């Protein structure tokens, strides 16, 4: 079911909130559920807490993409090469790594 709302002229604050919602239908449903819970005796604190957890869950899920995007932008701006900065075992050139380890074997032998 899709819920539509009609706003009055005096509801400017609600309109601002409503306009900012990406999923307007879900946002209105959540608001109505919260109102119903309050009417049924749930505390305001419990309702707000659940809303914050729900909102953060969405944000946290997006966090890796947000961070990766920001890092990509920063590296592009500074013309750095991510391959050199994000060292991981798999990134080593196997031939060079073998030469290095052979050299360390010679240096480190007792």
């Amino acid at each position, binding site marked *: 079911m899709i819920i539509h709302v009609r706003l009055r002229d005096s509801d400017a604050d609600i309109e601002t909130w409503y306009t900012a919602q990406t999923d307007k239908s879900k946002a209105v449903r959540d608001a109505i559920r919260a109102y119903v819970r309050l009417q049924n005796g749930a505390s305001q604190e419990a309702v707000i807490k659940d809303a914050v957890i729900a909102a953060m869950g969405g944000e946290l899920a997006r966090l890796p993409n947000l961070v990766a995007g920001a890092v990509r932008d920063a590296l592009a701006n500074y013309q750095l090469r991510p391959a*050199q900065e994000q*060292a*991981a*075992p798999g*990134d*080593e*050139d196997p031939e*060079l*790594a073998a*030469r*290095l*380890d*052979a*050299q*360390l074997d010679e*240096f*480190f032998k*007792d």
Partner: protein
Amino acid sequence: MTETLAIDIGYGYTKGMTGKAQTLIPSMVGPAEAIRFESDVIAENGKGIALEVNGRAFFVGEQAEVQSASASQTLDVTRTGSIEQKALFYAVASDLVRTTTDDIAVVTGLPVLDFDDRHKADLRAMLQGEHTVRRTGKHTRCFNVEGVHVVPQAMGSLFALVLDKRGKLIDGDLAGGRVGIIDVGTLTTNYVLVDRLRYVETGSDSITTGMAEMLQKVAKDLKREHDLDWGLQLSKVDQAVRDRSTPVKGVPVNIAGIVNPHIEALADTIVSRARTLWGGAADLMAVVLTGGGSLELASYIRKAYTHTRTVGGDPQFANVTGYLRAGLRRFG
């Protein structure tokens, strides 16, 4: 678990590093009995290093410099395996080794000229085995050095450039090419040639020329022109050289005219030996300049070798940083 301790014992300074901390101590060692009255002061204010080596008491670092001029900066600190070197090792260990640590792997370096079996054996004899470090004002440390691993000194700087903090290979450019390393120390300059991370002995050498020679010449000129008698206080001359200025009778005097020709002459000597080893270095990916004197000399060396690179951060720590990274790659 075995902890890796990297140590670089130089004539000017001794540098130590673990994965958690680092320290730098002037390489000056004096017998404590000559300045016994100072021990109470040290215990009170925590400054200076007083410790025991093989049953004898020593002052190390600034306290030895201030209190024991005749015994302070002697060539003994460069004699591989000497008791003075052991005092420097204990000073570093008392700063960096945790009281709960039992086993240590030491990674250190020798000048290219001394990189032979005899000197390595002397170094191992001094470092390997059980140690009890008693230092005034600190908890006693008891640990076992289970391995001593030695590399040519300047190799540390290359390891610092091509390995990350955990010892993983990150710089494919330098690692994949031929690289010449010039390590300008206080008394000696080391040249190391590396071909795709392999040490090439025939292109490596040491000369007994370093920053001290230049500082002595500057000290002589400062005495002649400004009556500053700093021949035995090279740390003061060093500071004046860095500043290109020094106060004379309370007034700052520009000494660039004195300093620059001596630095240029030192650079000429260093480049001259490099040319006999590497020619114009056209086949080298880079010439890496490192060591305490590298910042002063870089602009002059770059005139001869335009592909000169300096190491990032404090170049005094470049070798010990590389020793640690190599050790962490090996021992985790």
